[in-house]
């Protein structure tokens, strides 16, 4: 009896893995380019990870595992040796060697691209032999491997042959062979890309690893309009849809033909405040900057009813946030991310203590096409702050104009979301809390917060390799940010995906589905 069951199970499993299937995937946006070093853009990375691989990759739960490199070791704190996988072939048949890694490093650091961050701290890549490279670092780097996940390897010979040694200059509307064609080592070949229409993938028969699912063909269709995208899933035109509009999730859950795969994204939505300018630009308060007063920032925090935003605006699809990093990011622990309920009276009292018993006006800048329900959340905030006497003047704009405005510090308060590509809290701390410099430090510290204690913690963390010590620093920095109310964290986004009943895949917290996990029964 037992044996028969086992046999049957093995038979079914055997059949299922060999059965080829097409996965039709609908999402909101198209990719910008096929050049893996050109644009640091979430959708583009999500598609290109199917074709181009890095030295390392993430497991299902975001641990780093070998990919094009089979092992690595620290030779010194600033020198890491990578042993490359042997027998790997690019899609055009040429072998993968150390030359390709050296070439790709030289390519990704070119200034016209926007992906240099993924090799930040790497001074040089040295070829030792055909299957060994050494990365020379400018200092010890505890998150090096996580950064390298999105450093994708291109073939040197192919790039040279097709005159694509240089990264496409996307901003200058340049096109190159590599921006229209792909030649990676990954699980899927890109057969066709018709911009704004579809991308067709075929499984790579010569891939060094095995597909965990059975999707041998994938067709990606960008569908801008929310209603059309959902209609495509309901009518069966696509098998899986990402970028679900929140108001439709409940309906999709009730649909017997479909299922919804829940999961969170490692992205935190928050409000930042100008804590640098001597006077706010759009405020009724003249001669001083009320956001420099911690009591005012605390009042802004206390007035926000995060549960109401979760229930009404987000329809349950958010995790109310007290700290600036989401669950799943290293450094996040539930005990420091406990949200206190809204306290209107307490907030009013704080404002009165700070000398604003009648509140004041200020400007609030928001994107209206970037985060889930961004403009609606801002409208809700305007209402919540109005109850404690603060009048926020909302200016909601498309991301492109919004981001230019706030990067010029032309704001009093602004909404932003911060995703963590490295799954490590330092990424957020360094970008958002570290005193602004011209480089990566404080690159998005747009409120120009400057806290010497936080700065020294963050700088120490960058090179601290003792895990325990570093974890303690990470925690201290996140708690200090919270208790000084430098930001108003709102929530961590949840990003469910909807699919037909017969489709299964692994939800990824970076919101990038990987077709190698997808199976269609």
């Amino acid at each position: 009896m037992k044996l028969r069951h086992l046999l049957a199970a093995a038979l079914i499993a055997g059949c299922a893995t060999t059965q080829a299937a097409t996965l039709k995937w609908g999402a909101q946006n198209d990719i910008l380019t096929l050049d893996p070093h050109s644009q640091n853009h979430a959708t583009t990375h999500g598609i290109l990870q199917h074709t181009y691989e890095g030295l390392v990759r993430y497991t299902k739960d975001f641990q780093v595992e070998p990919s094009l490199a089979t092992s690595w070791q620290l030779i010194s704190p600033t020198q890491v040796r990578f042993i490359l996988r042997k027998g790997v072939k690019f899609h055009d048949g040429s072998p993968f060697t150390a030359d390709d890694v050296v070439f790709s490093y030289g390519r990704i650091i070119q200034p016209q691209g926007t992906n240099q961050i993924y090799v930040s701290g790497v001074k040089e890549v040295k070829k030792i032999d055909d299957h060994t490279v050494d990365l020379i670092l400018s200092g010890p780097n505890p998150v090096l491997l996580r950064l390298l996940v999105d450093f994708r390897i291109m073939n040197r010979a192919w790039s040279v042959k097709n005159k694509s040694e240089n990264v496409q200059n996307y901003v200058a509307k340049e096109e190159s062979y590599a921006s229209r064609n792909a030649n990676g080592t990954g699980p899927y070949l890109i057969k066709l890309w018709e911009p704004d229409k579809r991308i067709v993938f075929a499984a790579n028969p010569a891939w060094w690893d095995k597909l965990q699912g059975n999707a041998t063909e994938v067709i990606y269709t960008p569908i801008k309009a929310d209603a059309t995208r959902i209609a495509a899933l309901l009518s069966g035109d696509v098998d899986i849809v990402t970028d679900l509009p929140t108001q439709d999730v409940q309906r999709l859950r009730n649909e017997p033909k479909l299922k919804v795969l829940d999961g969170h994204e490692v992205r935190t939505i928050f409000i930042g405040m100008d804590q640098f300018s001597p006077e706010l630009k759009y405020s009724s308060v003249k001669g001083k900057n009320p956001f420099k007063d911690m009591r005012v920032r605390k009042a802004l925090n206390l007035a926000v009813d995060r549960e109401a935003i979760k229930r009404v605006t987000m329809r349950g699809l958010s995790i109310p946030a007290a700290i600036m990093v989401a669950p799943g990011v290293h450094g996040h622990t539930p005990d420091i991310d406990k949200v206190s309920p809204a306290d209107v009276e307490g907030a009013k009292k704080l404002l009165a203590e700070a000398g604003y018993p009648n509140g004041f006006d200020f400007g609030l800048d928001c994107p209206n096409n970037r985060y889930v329900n961004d403009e609606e959340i801002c409208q809700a905030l305007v209402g919540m702050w109005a109850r404690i006497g603060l009048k926020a003047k909302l200016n909601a704009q498309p991301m492109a104009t919004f981001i230019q405005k706030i990067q010029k510090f032309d704001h009093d308060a602004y909404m932003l979301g911060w995703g963590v590509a490295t799954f490590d809290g330092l990424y957020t701390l360094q970008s958002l809390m570290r005193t602004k410099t011209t480089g990566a430090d404080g690159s998005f510290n747009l409120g120009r917060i400057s806290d010497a204690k936080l700065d020294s913690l963050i700088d120490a963390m960058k090179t601290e390799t003792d895990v325990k010590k570093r974890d303690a620093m990470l925690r201290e920095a996140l708690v200090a940010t919270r208790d000084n109310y430098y930001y108003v964290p709102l929530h961590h986004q949840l990003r469910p995906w909807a699919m037909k009943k017969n489709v299964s895949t692994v939800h990824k917290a970076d919101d990038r589905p990987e077709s190698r996990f997808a199976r269609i029964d």
Partner: protein
Amino acid sequence: MAAVAGWLRRAWAHDLAWSFRRSPVTILAAFLTLVCVGSAVFAPWVAPHSPFDSATLNLSDGFTPPSWTEKGSSKYLLGTDDQGRDVLSTIMYGARISLGVGLAAVLFSATLGVSLGLLSGYLGGRLDAFIMRVADIQLSFPAILIALLIDGMTRIALPRDMHDQLAVYVLVLAIGVSGWVQYARTVRGSTLVEKNKEYVQAARVIGRHPLAILLHHVLPNVTGPVLVIATIHIATAIITEATLSFLGVGVPPTQPSLGTLIRVGNDFLFSGEWWITVFPGAALIVLVLSVNLLGDWLRDALNPKLR
């Protein structure tokens, strides 16, 4: 002269009143129009909530269904939208913008159209040919395209913040400009007839200024048709405004018209919150239908041939 005019006006009113009393549909239409206009004009005093005062909003009340449904609340007769605003109140405030824009656009159209029609008909010649050819060209475009064109141009010309503040005026201008042709053509036709009549010639003989002749002699005799066109045009203007706002190029959501409300509510239609878009839609239909019925009645009542 004044006595004669007063007597004429009284008789006219009496005539209209008689035909009004005989038509129950018209009475109903007038009643509904009165309700719509009344609740729009007096919205700040009669609306149950003030939906655009952020301090009174409670997000927790968002998506409350209409009061007669299971989960409804007696506080919100027609339910609430995604921000917890009372739908009935937003409709009242929305109708205010819709009616305001409609009326202002009609006034603008009528002024422009009547003036051009009078000049064109009375002066004739090259000016007449020019104005009428422009009218012909404009008639070959749908009015909505012209309104879109004007709106689009101001969007490019004005910075965003300024455009939002001026959106209502831009809309009035866009709809107004797109509708002047009917007035101009009608008035030109009537003017051509009137200008050769003896009273006009008499005025000319005694040396009155042409402008005075136009304003004092010709204009009063061509206003009948203008009144009819204007009434029907109000309905068209409201629809055009709603269409533009529905397309997202009309008034901003911070001061929504009925069209904006329908557009915003449209996002929630499929997820089951039908009341956010259906009620503003119904309000728009009722408003436009009753104004149209009134216009039809006016046209018939003023046209002796149909009596």
